[in-house]
């Protein structure tokens, strides 16, 4: 319940405050969001599996976001930023789909 509340509050804050994204963070923000989504779905699946641990969740969330941003940064420095971000998005998307499939199997048994 609190988790859903947190989601709603986050949306409201994002809409109301509408902070300016600093220039240096703009290439990494979308990737970081996708990585965070991956972490969230992974957490949901772990929760349904009964192996959810908040510490693991926080650590994996932070590391997911940081690694995604790091990969994009590295790609930018190497001149393959757009390709690497595409790769990261593809990998994270596959993971999200996998997690969603597991969640779906848990909830709907199908």
């Amino acid at each position, binding site marked *: *319940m*609190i*988790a*859903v*509340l*947190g*989601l*709603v*509050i*986050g*949306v409201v*804050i*994002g*809409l109301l*405050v*509408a*902070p300016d*994204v600093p220039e240096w963070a*703009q290439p990494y*923000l*979308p990737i*970081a*969001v996708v990585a*965070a*989504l*991956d*972490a*969230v*779905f*992974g*957490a949901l*699946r*772990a*929760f*349904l*599996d*009964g*192996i*959810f*641990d*908040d510490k*693991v*969740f*926080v650590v*994996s*969330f932070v590391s997911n976001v940081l690694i995604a941003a790091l990969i994009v940064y590295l790609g930018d420095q190497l001149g393959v930023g757009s390709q690497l971000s595409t790769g990261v998005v593809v990998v994270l998307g596959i*993971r999200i789909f*996998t*997690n969603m*499939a*597991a969640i779906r*199997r*848990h*909830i709907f*048994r199908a």
Partner: protein
Amino acid sequence: MSDDTPETSKPDPVEQPHPDEPTPMPQAKPKPRTPNLALRRLRTGFKPSRGQAIVAVVLALVACVAVVQVRVNRADDGYQNARREDLIAILDGLGQNTRRLESEIAELEERKNSLSSSADKAQTAREQAEAQVRTLGILAGTLPAQGPGVRITLNDPESKMTSSNLLDAIEELRDAGAEAIQINGAARVVASTDFVDDAPGIRIDGQKLNSPYVIEAIGESHNLAEAANFPGGLVSEVTGPQVGGTAEVTELPQVQITALHAPEEHRYARPAPSPTK
């Protein structure tokens, strides 16, 4: 956590469908015993706990950042998602536009320069014309003048001075470089001035003037004084036995010539077209 595959993530000892049967219908039997464990966990998971709070915070963060990102993306100008060929075309168009505008700027700059230079020329021409008007005004006697010069006072008690005496005096002064001359503060001596005897006195340009005659001339005062004083000149003429008057020549640092000559319309003479133009 999400690294586990769904098959290996079954540590819950409550659910044991695997050893029983790998048959195509594994869910049929455990369902009545444990109706959907995941859903039950989901339902019980809504109770407040530390994990819930942490998840809430993280979710709020994610949602906030996602919304911000969506806004940023929407505010973007669309170039980010444009294809390379489109970008090249856009860039090309912009480059062409730039070149066109630059050439336009150069053209307009040129026009502005030519206009300002012609305005300068017109300004210069007008200044020259004004200077000429001033010079010619002094020459034609239509403008008052001032400057160093001499004042020659001629006393002619016996009215024996003739117009030719005065004319000679004017000629001598002009010869010495007089630039503007007036007599008695009333008659400006110009090119068309005439001197007529009208005893007792002299008629200059139709004005009758009487002794004493005061000739004021602007020029190099020493030269003018010399021109009046030289032997056989104006002064000796006037003081000589023929006239028997007195003459006084004063060199002045500042002479004011205020008498004006009224120019008349030329009835016959017309300016001829200049051969230089």
